[in-house]
């Protein structure tokens, strides 16, 4: 079995369970749409807050499907077969992170465009917001996969998971919003974006290694 076979198989499963897959996206859209109701429809206020709202909502929405990322495979015995597929456990974890990004991160990126317009974000800032969310959502998938592997088999793992993953995501939020704010106020936005990309470069090898080790110990 190759990494690509795990990815295509899990993508197919996500398509068959379409309602579960759409849930995270709908959660993202609905929570972001609640903010104008809560803080008032003043266009300047919304434009000022839009990057922060979108980042926080994307972060929370990406957490939703993590509970079942390994949970379903753990419960039905598929995880054992994945660990015996001949692939290192780290690559199994990487395959899961890729699937999480494709079915959650990528749709969130697309949905950001209409949401940003709805929140009156300056159209010139939108490309920078998206450029931050691109590595940002990939990092969320990597951190989330690691967290999901760590709590696997623990009782009430679903409650533990946000407590474990959300603190890790603080730098993403800070630099992602900083990039958009810098662009909105006419400053250079490259530095925070580069920092996000650097984080991704570090997390790409490290998170699957940690998640793979956690999967091994969960199977024991």
């Amino acid at each position, binding site marked *: 079995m190759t990494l690509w076979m795990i990815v295509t198989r899990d993508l197919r*499963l996500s398509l*068959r369970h379409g309602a579960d897959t759409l849930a995270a996206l709908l959660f993202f859209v609905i929570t972001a749409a609640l903010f104008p109701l809560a803080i008032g429809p003043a266009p300047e206020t919304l434009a000022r807050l839009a990057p922060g709202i979108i980042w926080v909502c994307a972060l929370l929405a990406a957490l939703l499907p993590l509970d079942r990322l390994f949970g379903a495979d753990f419960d*039905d015995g*598929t995880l054992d077969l994945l*660990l*015996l597929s*001949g692939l*290192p456990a780290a690559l199994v974890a990487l395959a899961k992170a890729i699937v999480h990004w494709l079915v959650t991160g990528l749709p969130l990126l697309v949905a950001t465009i209409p949401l940003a317009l709805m929140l009156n974000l300056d159209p010139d800032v939108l490309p920078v917001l998206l450029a931050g969310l691109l590595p940002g959502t990939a990092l969320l998938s990597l951190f989330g996969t690691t967290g999901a592997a760590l709590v696997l088999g623990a009782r009430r793992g679903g409650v533990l998971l946000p407590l474990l993953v959300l603190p890790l995501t603080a730098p993403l939020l800070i630099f992602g919003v900083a990039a958009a704010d810098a662009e909105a106020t006419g400053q250079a936005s490259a530095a925070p974006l580069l920092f996000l990309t650097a984080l991704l470069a570090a997390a790409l090898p490290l998170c699957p290694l940690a998640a793979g080790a956690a999967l*091994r110990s969960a199977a024991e």
Partner: protein
Amino acid sequence: MLDVQEIAAIRGEQHIFGPISFCVPPGGATVLVGPNGSGKSTLLRILAGLGRITAGVVRWHGRDALADRAEHGARVAYVGHLDAVKSALTARENLGAGADIGLAAMALAHLADQPARFFSAGQKRRLALARLACRAAPIWLLDEPTLGLDTASVARFGDMLAAHRATGGIVLAATHLPLPLPDAAELRLA
């Protein structure tokens, strides 16, 4: 040849089994017997490289088998208590590469494109066993493989086991039911 030397398992503070030693030659079969909780499933998971080994060494063709667990996984086909069947996928999609060989071996070809959620418990078990035939893994580790199977399926599974052993593959099975494994060695766990 699988050579198991003095292996033992401890979980927490509890001693599960061992130390035990045995050897399975090419084409050989060993049936693990013993009361519930005697460590049969734990032993199979250790030999698959899934469980943690407390003491001893497992050798495959003279080399430490568990040194690289990913590499060891490729030579192992494991059927545990759980069928690992995804109900949203069809029988063929569940098996993946080499599906047609497996489906033919367990007489499931006519159900190949049915989603597995329509399968009975016995049919899901047959699908889990069909997975064994899909890839040419030399070591088969089977945990209660025939639980819930009808007699015709047990006979077909017997043919699969015989074909596997004829090519030099080895079989280790934990069971309480009689298995179609002629001249298998018996390993009793206390």
